[in-house]
């Protein structure tokens, strides 16, 4: 067990019986590990809870039992500065790229926001943004457009590059290509692979598409009936 990895340890998530629904167990005793530079694939049919698991690993939701370990420390026991570091280093990329951007903000604005968050002085915003655009191969015009005016593929690339600005160590990819045209899917996957080789990022790839999983992952598991079966 490398202490650098992002590890899930016996995670379970149950929705309690409430006023309007009966209790539901989403997953139970799920354990796996994501290593730097490697991809762990998570497969399962829709609605099984893969996305929820992804969100738990990324720290957006809390698990009912079990913990997520980052650098050997469980999330629940982290101190404030450790938590901030975790936030930066573990990112999540969503399925629907149009949803990933605030429809009322221009792309340029959205990028600047992130740069400001990182503490980049305003004077250097434009140069950094240009750098980013060149790496992802997007034209400069996208900066002045609203998300609704840009194609799905370009948006997904922008979403990825925005995440990369934060220099994450791990990225949870929640169905990164499902909302895109077949022609664009390959582009995105290649881009992801490139980034992984360059930056040694670890991926948690969530998808219902077996081909995508096989293409990208070093190892994967299938989430079925709340249990994870690790293959390979």
């Amino acid at each position: 067990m490398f202490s650098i990895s992002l590890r899930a340890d016996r995670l379970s998530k149950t929705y309690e019986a409430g006023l309007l629904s009966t209790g539901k167990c989403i997953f139970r005793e799920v354990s796996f590990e994501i290593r730097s530079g490697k991809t762990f694939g998570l497969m399962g049919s829709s609605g099984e809870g893969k996305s929820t698991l992804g969100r738990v690993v990324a720290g957006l939701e809390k698990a009912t039992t079990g913990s997520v370990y980052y650098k050997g420390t469980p999330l629940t026991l982290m101190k404030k500065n450790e938590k901030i570091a975790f936030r930066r280093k573990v990112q999540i990329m969503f399925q629907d790229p149009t949803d990933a951007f605030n429809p009322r903000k221009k792309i340029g604005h959205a990028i600047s926001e992130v740069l400001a968050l990182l503490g980049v002085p305003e004077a250097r915003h434009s140069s950094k943004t240009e750098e980013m655009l060149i790496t992802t191969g997007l034209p400069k015009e996208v900066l002045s457009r609203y998300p609704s005016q840009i194609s799905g593929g370009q948006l997904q690339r922008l979403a990825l590059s925005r995440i990369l600005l934060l220099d994450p160590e791990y990225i949870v990819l929640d169905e990164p290509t499902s909302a895109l045209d077949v022609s664009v899917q390959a582009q995105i996957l290649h881009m992801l692979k490139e980034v992984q080789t360059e930056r040694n990022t670890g991926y948690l790839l969530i998808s219902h598409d077996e081909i995508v999983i096989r293409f990208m992952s070093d190892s994967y598991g299938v989430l079925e009936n709340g249990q994870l079966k690790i293959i390979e």
Partner: protein
Amino acid sequence: MSPEAAHIESSCITEACTEEYSEKKREISSLNFKFPGELLFKISGRRKGLKGQLNRGGIFLFVFFLFMALFPSFLAPYAPNERFTPYKEPSWDHFLGTNDIGNDIFSELVYGSRISMTVGFAAALVSTLIGAILGICAGYFRGALDELLMGFTDVVLIIPKIPLIIVLGAYLQPSIWILIPVLGLLSWESTARVTRSKTLQLREAGYVKSARCMGFSSWHIMSTDIFPNLYNVLLPKFMLATASAMISEASLSFLGLSDISMKSWGTMLSFAFFRGGFIRDMWWWYTPPGICITLCIISIALIGFGLETQGKEHVREGADAM
């Protein structure tokens, strides 16, 4: 009915759809104006022409009153404080005659629009802001804070506002600067509810989740991602709150609890009744202010509804976000 009854804040059927059933009845009962709007659009719904007409009529009336409030000197022949012979009947000199101390009633009417509408808008602003802030916080943070805030809202909802305002008004010096915050502080519940619903929806959007993931502070997310998307919910609420505040102000002025130095339409009515206008059969004194109040409120309510029905489609779509 009392100002609360004509409490043009409607908690809306849209809310009833998005919230639990058991809350529905509370909403429907504490509501009222939702229906006139729905009514109007159902009345006019079959024929696009009529709907458009009502809408345009509302806007036209509203602009007219706004004009009256902003540029009173254009319409009013005299200053409202100028004194002439009291108790005069309408004539060419004085369209609506003069009141008990000799002020020209027509000029009073025109200048009065300023006060009535200012109080209305200001109080609505206060109430909308409070409701929005509480709603956003409740919806964004959820959990204990949400329960607390909503519980607090529920509790305040029960307390009858007008009697409270009366007691407060009797203790404090009647002044506009007291009236506005008091009116505002007592009518934010419905806005808070609606804002909370919408925030709960918005919170699930991908960009909000991404923002949280990237580490933006809650404050940043609330102000840049959530708040700007609330406009189409807040604006109709604001208009309806204005109408409600205007009726409340009119009622309070009638009781003499408003600023006497600032003659709003309600104060005019109060003077007319209590200073002999009624006994002397001076219908030209007390009828115009009442009509103005009614028309102004109708126009604002129409606009508020127009905006609300527009927004309804968006809300309906996300209605199952809960």
